[in-house]
């Protein structure tokens, strides 16, 4: 089951550059929340703060409070523990090229030292691959072929399967379709609808139609600030801020 995320007064920096200013919002459990905005507005930085991936970059830091369920991830937990509960799918598919398709899905369990017995692991991998709508395409070759040998769309679904296999509560998606063709994009969007039953999803997207299709809530970022956050229909039909309206109608960005 997913859990909600509550963000309060989140600020993020890259060195001296102040990238996020006082962002506060709530992402409901088992809902999809979309983050839109022009390039460089802090969308990716924002979701990378939700699983403490932001601090992986040298000299990057963040302050404020992000609660995943009841746990404040910036207070008293380790980044590693946070990331086991909050998984991430990246902009470019990044399967591990040195591992087979099977091992890619099993990677999270194996590398965390929580791999169950062989039979149970096979079941888990199958469930994850089915969940990511990839099972039928790879079931015969998954133990021979490298994860990098799949097509771009398949690789991205493999990355989703890999994330699902560790059973997180929240899945963050950083423009998961921007490197994919429309057919693969369609498959991933269908997937998002199913994934909502199990996880809370926060998705960054450049594609406003996509946000409108998959998300219940939408947040609009501009210059590192959360300008507007509301139900998706409201944001796209009756935005309360002039800047949101300008962006959505294509007047800038």
């Amino acid at each position, binding site marked *: 089951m997913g859990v909600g995320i509550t963000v309060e007064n989140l600020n993020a920096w890259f060195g001296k550059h102040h990238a996020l200013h006082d962002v506060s919002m709530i992402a409901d459990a088992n809902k999809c929340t979309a983050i839109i905005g022009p390039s460089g507005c802090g969308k990716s930085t924002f979701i990378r703060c939700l*699983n403490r991936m932001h601090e*992986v970059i040298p000299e990057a830091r963040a302050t404020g409070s992000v609660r995943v369920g009841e746990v404040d991830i910036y207070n008293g937990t380790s980044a590693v523990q946070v990331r*086991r509960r909050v998984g991430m799918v990246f902009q470019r598919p990044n*399967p591990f090229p*040195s591992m087979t398709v099977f091992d890619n899905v099993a990677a*999270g369990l194996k590398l*965390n030292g929580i791999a169950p017995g062989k039979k149970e692991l096979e079941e888990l991998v199958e469930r994850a691959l089915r969940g990511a709508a990839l099972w039928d395409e790879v079931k015969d070759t998954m133990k021979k072929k490298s994860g990098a*040998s799949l097509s771009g769309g398949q690789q991205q679904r493999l990355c989703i399967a890999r994330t699902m296999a560790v059973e997180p509560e929240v899945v963050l998606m950083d423009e998961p379709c921007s490197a994919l063709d429309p057919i693969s994009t369609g498959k991933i969007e269908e997937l998002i609808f199913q994934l909502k039953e199990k996880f809370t999803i926060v998705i960054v997207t450049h594609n406003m139609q996509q946000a409108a299709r998959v998300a219940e809530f939408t947040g609009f970022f501009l210059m590192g600030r959360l300008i507007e956050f509301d139900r998706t229909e409201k944001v796209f039909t009756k935005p309360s801020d002039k800047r949101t309206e300008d962006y959505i109608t294509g007047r800038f960005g």
Partner: protein
Amino acid sequence: MARALNQQVAPLPFGRKLSDWAATFIAASCVVLVLAPLLAIFGYLLYKGFGALNFDFLTKTPAPPGEIGGGMANAIAGSVLILGLASAIGVPVGIGSGIYLSEYGRGSRFGNLIRFTSDVLNGVPSIIIGITAYALVVLTRGHFSALAGGVALGIMMIPTITRTTEEMLLLVPHSLREAAYGLGVSKWRTTVSVTLRTATSGVITGCMLAFARIAGETAPLLFTVFGNTYWNWNLDQPTAALPLQIFSYAISPYDDWHRQAWAGALILIILIVFSVAAVRIAVSRGTLGSVQ
């Protein structure tokens, strides 16, 4: 666009054809220039050394001066022992410091210091590294030993392996590390099971380069392993080594020893080629796809 499709493609002007041909020719000549000395050396070694190769050469210890026959079995075994020891020291230390430079010490003052030191160490003449091992091991133990030779050659392997490991790990895209972090994998585990594993073949190439470079070293062995005309398996005792044996046989006054020196050189080359090839094959079977 439509017009471009209908247009006849004009033939390339002669000048461009000529420069294309010239570039191909120059590149091909360079390949020949690189391969020629290698083939010449190998051919000459085969020509000179193959005649002296026989069963005795591979199984017997050296004959007393003036006598015909005997072999270099103890020197071959000694070389294998010393090279194994050197790799046991050089490979883990080199890979470890390469990991540090690429994953932990990036941009830090200490990391830069290590990188600089490693480059300097790479330029230190091998005889000086031999003297260092002499002072560190031979003087403190009170006698020459295989161990001292292994330490000297091991030190020589470290800078090459360190820098190639660092470069190969840097080639692994950052996104793979982030993928592992995103699964809640710790940094150390990510480094070993994702980053290093992806760079395996490049790192192995670095190790093999270092190995091939030290396998023929003679100078650092002169006052570390010292040489021995008998069998020795004790790491704490003077040991025979192929380069040393070749050296002393080549400057001897006996014709038979000269022929054996050629055979020894041939065996040394074969030893290097085979170990490099064996490791390459073993690694390529064990890995799927990786950087490089």
